[in-house]
């Protein structure tokens, strides 16, 4: 039995979280460094996974399989396919930047009680989230996935509710109330989704008698497991609801703007770039694999909802006054694209969707983190409070612009590739949906450029006139992300190579083939 690499990738941050939390109140900086190092080590492990993974090999690799809760038919079963590998890598990649970006976000304002250690808590929670996200990407046992899918709400909840932007416009008191409102909203939405999924999970056990993806797949294959159509549909809905809340899909999206608005920028990135990916990932991994027929049955509705998300999110982004809220709605629009790609059931669509998850993670991180730096300088989230920043802080403005251009998926930057793939993939099977979705790219340009124009251009506002440009730490955070955006935009092959075979598998799960081009069909 070889070294349990996957477990290690999740266990390391988990242990790191404990260790970080245990750091005494005085050694705040030590805690930060510890967290950073742990996250980097995790990144190293993730890279090892990436290297050890053979795109053309088995479907699930580096698998681990141990008995856990026999009575519930639960096995501790891990394994990664290309999609999971990509997302694990993304997670491990982003966390160090998140930690680095949030370096000072959790410094206690007043030295409160001796035992109150917000900083340690902050970084410990981030690592805890990383651990849970990673393992839920790796889980090939529905129950294991579900447990961590649910459990990750708790640290997220504390991150959202416990730490917010400094110098809030309406004073710390109201800020605290708004934060806890956002946190509770986040938790209740996701918990409700999760509990409904719990019902479905139990149902699945009653039907299939097992939680192991592979076992269920085999049982389907050799006909020992037969789901009644209605059962399969109900179970699908149970699962999908939870994922749609997490993703989030219109009309279950309203928790996201609040959460991202109130949380500090790094946490907001954690939500939208990392945690929400679990939702879209799970659609690909569980909805399609476990309930192929039901997935196909639901496709039209899901696609319509996705398109609504795309347009609706973009339109609302245009209408926002709050920078972070704007980014949140932009993300909703992007998640619309991802979900559309997943359910288009074409190889371009699903490869695009997976690629989109990665790229969106990076681009949102870039944009949101820079926005966070901006906000921390001025102490306001309102777009109207800014203006002419590019004159006083050109580098900040430049990075912000690049982040924005990535968000509007400019060709040459990573998101373009994925977005175009998703669009093509959808278009080949659902032209009308595809065309409507294409309007999203115009709207994306609108909200991004409006944001840039209002904040960065025009005459310099007196309040921002003294604004310092990006500091070394901040450049260190943003620069790699931007490089990555450009690299993956020009040369996405490394990712597509890993993702493609996995997508083929998934498509074969749902027994779908790509439509053939008209001219071939004609011949």
């Amino acid at each position, binding site marked *: 039995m070889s070294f349990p690499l996957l477990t290690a990738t999740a266990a390391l941050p988990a242990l790191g979280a404990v260790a970080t939390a245990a750091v005494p109140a005085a050694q705040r900086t030590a805690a930060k460094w510890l967290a950073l190092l742990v996250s980097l080590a995790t990144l190293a492990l993730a890279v090892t996974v990436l290297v050890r993974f053979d795109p053309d090999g088995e479907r699930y690799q580096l698998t681990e399989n141990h008995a856990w809760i026999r009575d519930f038919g639960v096995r501790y079963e891990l394994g990664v396919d290309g999609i999971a590998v990509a997302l694990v890598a993304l997670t491990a990649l982003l966390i160090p930047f998140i930690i680095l970006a949030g370096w000072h976000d959790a410094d206690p304002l007043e030295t409160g009680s001796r035992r109150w250690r917000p900083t340690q808590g902050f970084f410990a929670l981030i690592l805890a989230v990383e651990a849970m996200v990673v393992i839920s990407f790796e889980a090939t046992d529905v129950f294991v996935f579900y447990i961590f899918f649910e459990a990750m709400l708790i640290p997220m909840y504390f991150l959202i509710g416990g730490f917010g932007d400094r110098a809030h416009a309406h004073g710390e008191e109201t800020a605290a109330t708004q934060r806890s409102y956002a946190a509770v909203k986040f938790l209740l939405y996701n918990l409700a989704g999760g509990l409904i999924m719990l019902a479905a999970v139990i149902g699945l056990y009653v039907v299939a008698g097992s939680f192991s993806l592979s076992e269920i797949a085999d049982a389907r294959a050799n006909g020992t497991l037969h789901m009644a159509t209605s059962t399969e549909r109900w179970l699908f809905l149970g699962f999908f609801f939870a994922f749609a809340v997490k993703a989030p899909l219109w009309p279950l999206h*309203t928790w996201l703007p609040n959460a991202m608005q109130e949380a500090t920028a790094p946490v907001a990135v954690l939500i939208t770039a990392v945690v929400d990916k679990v939702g879209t990932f799970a659609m690909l991994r569980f909805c399609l694999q476990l309930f192929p027929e039901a997935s196909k049955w639901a496709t039209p509705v899901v696609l319509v909802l996705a398109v609504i998300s795309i347009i609706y999110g973009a339109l609302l982004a245009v209408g926002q006054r709050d920078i972070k809220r704007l980014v949140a709605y932009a993300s909703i629009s992007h998640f619309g694209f991802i979900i559309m790609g997943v359910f288009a059931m074409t190889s371009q669509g699903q490869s695009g969707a997976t690629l989109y998850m990665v790229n969106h993670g990076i681009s949102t991180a870039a944009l949101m983190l820079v926005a966070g730096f901006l906000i921390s300088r001025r102490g306001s989230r309102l777009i109207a409070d800014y203006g002419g920043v590019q*004159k006083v802080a050109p580098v900040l403005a*430049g990075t912000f612009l690049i982040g924005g251009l990535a968000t509007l998926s400019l060709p*040459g930057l990573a998101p373009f590739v994925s977005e175009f*793939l998703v669009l*093509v993939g959808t278009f080949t099977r659902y032209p009308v949906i595809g*065309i409507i979705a294409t309007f999203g790219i115009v709207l994306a340009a609108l909200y991004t450029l409006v944001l840039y124009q209002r904040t960065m251009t025009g005459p310099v506002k007196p309040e921002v006139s003294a604004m310092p440009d990006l500091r070394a730490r901040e450049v260190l955070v943003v620069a790699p992300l931007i490089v990555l955006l450009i690299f993956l935009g*020009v040369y996405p*092959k490394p990712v597509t190579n890993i993702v493609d075979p996995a997508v083929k598998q998934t498509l074969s799960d749902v027994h779908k083939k790509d439509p053939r*081009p008209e001219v071939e069909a004609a011949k």
Partner: protein
Amino acid sequence: MENLIAPLIAAPLLGAAVLLVGGRRLDRAGHWIGVVLSFVSFALGLVLFADLLGKGAGHRTLTQHLFSWIPVAGFQADVTFRLDQLSMTFVLLITGVGSLIHLYSVGYMAHDERRRRFFGYLNLFLAAMLLLVLADNYLLLYVGWEGVGLASYLLIGFWQHKPSAATAAKKAFLVNRVGDMGLSIAIMLMFTTFGSFAFGPVLGTHEEPGLVGDASEGRLTAIALMLLLAACGKSAQVPLQSWLGDAMEGPTPVSALIHAATMVTAGVYLIVRSGAIFNAAPDAQLAVTVVGAVTLLFGAIVGCAKDDIKKALAGSTMSQIGYMVLAAGLGPIGYVFAIMHLVTHGFFKAGLFLGAGSVMHGMNDEVDMRRYGGLRKYMPVTFITFGLGYLAIIGFPGLSGFFSKDKIIEAAFAKGGTEGWILGGAALLGAAITAFYMTRVMLMTFFGEERWRDAPTPSPAEPSVEPAAETGGEHTEPHPHESPKVMTIPMIVLAVGSVFGGAFFSIGDRFLNWLEPVTGHDHGDAPLSAGVITGATMVCLVVGVAIAWAQYGRKPVPAVAPRGSLLTRAARRDLLQDDFNHVVLVRGGEHLTRSLVYLDHSLVDGVVNGTAAGFGGLSGRLRRLQNGFARSYAVSMFGGAALLVAATLLMRAV
């Protein structure tokens, strides 16, 4: 030899990277880096050109495969370059004119503290534009397509501190995005139709036809129309032309390079490149010609009414590109002439813009022609180069505009049938108007009495655009003076080009033979002989000039614009097209988003919060039952017991 193609693009790209990342330490020498690199890529272009000339007419296509870009099952997009006569033409135009304008900008932007960044953007533009014309498939072309859009966004908004500039930049990008949407849909359609979107397989060469032949005409028409939409966006054709006028907010070299000579002609390139598709979709072709004809008149009319010299020239650009699009819409009859006019136009329009820039440079960045006058003796070089460009554009016999435009008009008639007559007529009319407004510009600027003498500060209504604003130039009475060599030399070169270009191309049909293998060509059956048409053109020209002379040459030009006729006022406002956009799109959009934001809060969110509140209320009500009286608890127990018994009995009963 094809390995030189990548460096061709890489050189300016490198420049952009260095200049933009380099930071302040490059401020001193930065602009020279930009200039040198653009000249390098021009040199590479020349080398390749020589190489092509060396080959036989049939084998003048070089392709270079760099790497496979997006390899996804069934979807292969490669980074491959294709250099044939068509793209070669563009390469030379872009790098040539581009290099000249780089040079010009050294002088023009001398006073700007952000000059380094300016050259970075210019290089970025060159790279993107080269990518656009050298791409071997539509997706890669799309990259260049949006790349030039980005560069133009950055350069229009170069003086970001001016809200007007920032807004203009945003507008340009957005309107272009609408066009880009067309392009991306077109690519998707191609993918679903042909399973590919590379030039080779789809378009084929004129020996063996590509997949186009196998597709249904409906599909092809759809694709073609989407491509047309894209072209409209990039080339400022009706109905997406509104951004070009505002784009003049950018520095004049930018207007010359991007918004006159090269980028705005990308639409024409797209149509000509996709000729195979258009040829198979006559309806789409008709649409193209219509768009072209409408735009050439639209632009010309707008050009007549503007007092801002750059906006007047912008109108003219619009109209000239209208000619090209019209020609491109005519199919094989017109492709060559479209490109030819594109090249000549590149020369003289760039020259005109640079001239305008020079004038403004000497006039404290005044742009209102009504504050010019009699400048010919103050800036002779500018006057002469500008004058040559003027003669070229109105199609003065022997100059380049004459040849290229005349050919287009002929081709328009040659389309045959009523369309032929209508289109030809439009083209002729356009020629007359062109003559009018260009003469107007000429007269108002270089002739008449010197209206700038008694000119106070420029009207605040139209704040000065140019670098002086950066350097806070004080608005005393201007002292017109000739521009430095570094600016005049490019003007002279371009002037030469605009004088002899046409003749050089047309004599012995050089250009035709050069391009024909790519675009194909056939002579339509013109209802009128070439001579007649040329005569008609001449007449129009003379009439236009005469009217202009009558209006602006004989009697003095009022320093403040007269109210003017209804048409004039409409034309000053770009024929109310912007107002339409504002009312319908901007306002409507604002209302839509506002109401959606409200709905999102009250409805979508409200439902959930409502449920929560509902439970809260229910809880509060149920809570009252717990009234603290033991006896009432006993009652509930008693009742419960009774119910339990009753229910059990009932269960047995049923």
